[in-house]
């Protein structure tokens, strides 16, 4: 049995059906790329996978158990990064990182946060409030959480938006490293990204 499994998923927004009969299964070390035009329900699918939205039909299982009955145990195993990065304007980069990882159940010390931000190319900017950072730098602050969270499943909604080419390369190696360690990734992206480690599945929404 696969670790994450979605069966017969259907999503309805208002009176429009976005998708139906979506099936997928994901094992350790696998990447699921969700493709589709704007408005085809990619974000809705990812929100379903996190348990933020409930599918009209079908269910999502984690190790064979419905995620709706797992709740906290499941939330402890995933990291979700949505369109909104959850970076607070009034807090500094390092405070943002420490607070967001405390929220996801991992409390880290200043040194570890410092290291993660440095790795994301934000060295020297840790003490600046997030409101003076550029869009791409704010994205990097949000992505730095992936370095410290230690979760198995990453659910990433357009993680490459606003990133420059150096940061895209960095993300690529980060994803490869995670997959190499037996992690799983579900992501949407409009940019081409070359992941050589692990098996890549494509899910096309119309």
């Amino acid at each position, binding site marked *: 049995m696969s670790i994450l499994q979605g069966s017969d998923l259907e999503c309805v927004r208002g009176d429009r059906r976005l998708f139906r009969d979506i099936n997928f299964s994901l094992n350790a070390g696998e990447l699921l790329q969700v493709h589709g035009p704007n408005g085809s329900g990619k974000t809705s699918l990812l929100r379903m996978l996190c348990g933020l939205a409930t599918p009209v039909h079908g269910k999502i299982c984690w190790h064979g158990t419905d995620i709706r009955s797992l709740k906290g145990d499941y939330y*402890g195993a995933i990291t979700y990064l949505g369109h909104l990065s959850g970076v607070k304007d*009034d*807090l500094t980069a390092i405070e943002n990182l420490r*607070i967001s990882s405390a*929220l996801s159940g991992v*409390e880290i010390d200043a040194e570890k946060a410092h290291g993660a931000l440095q790795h994301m190319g934000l060295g020297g900017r840790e003490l600046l*409030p997030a409101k003076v950072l550029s869009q791409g730098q704010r994205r990097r602050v949000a992505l730095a959480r992936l370095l410290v969270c230690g979760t198995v499943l990453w659910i990433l909604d357009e993680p490459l938006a606003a990133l420059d080419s150096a940061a895209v390369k960095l993300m690529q190696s980060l994803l490869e490293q995670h997959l190499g360690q037996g992690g799983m990734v579900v992501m949407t992206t409009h940019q081409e990204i070359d992941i050589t480690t692990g098996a890549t599945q494509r899910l096309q929404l119309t």
Partner: protein
Amino acid sequence: MSLWVIQRDLLLAMRRRSDVLTTLFFFIIVVSLFPLGVGPEINMLRTMAPGVVWVAALLASMLSLGRMFSSDYLDGTLEQMLLSPQSLSMLVLGKALAHWLVTGVPLVLMSPVLGIQYDLSADALLVLTASLLLGTPVLSLIGAIGAALTLGLRGGGVLVSLLVLPLYIPVLIFGAGAVEASAAGLGASAHLSLLGAFLLASLVLAPWATAVSLRISME
């Protein structure tokens, strides 16, 4: 535990002092305007003092309810809270406590000073402060439910007052009643015990109700 949530909200409040001061100044101004408006009739001022202070505290606390979840909602932190392995009720309790520390406690501290304008006796001032100390956390806790239900709605500010004000009424009656009862020589302990009971009930029920409302609002 949700200690770090309280810490974070206090840190954010420190960085945005104007929000905190708005609530406090609103309270001070409303309470100070009444004696100017109704004239220096001492007996009338004494009778109306508890009601005026309590209504002003109620409105001041409601003024800041909209901000309790909206900034977290707009920048995506709320999504992360919903996905946290920690209990959402505990996080919400932390946020409500932080809201009280930032908006409620300053009102409690200011009220004895403002009560002097109404020529309240030392005993009455003490009871007024005690009733606010027990009552204002209830306002934050109940207000959190309303703020969660109206999250992301247009005109949520008006709706939240319609939802929350009826629930505030018992707190208002017993809060203001405590001072009147003590002035009438009946003793305030009955009223204060009831306020304490409201506080305990809302400590248990409000975070849970807020957590459920947040999950509904975020779907």
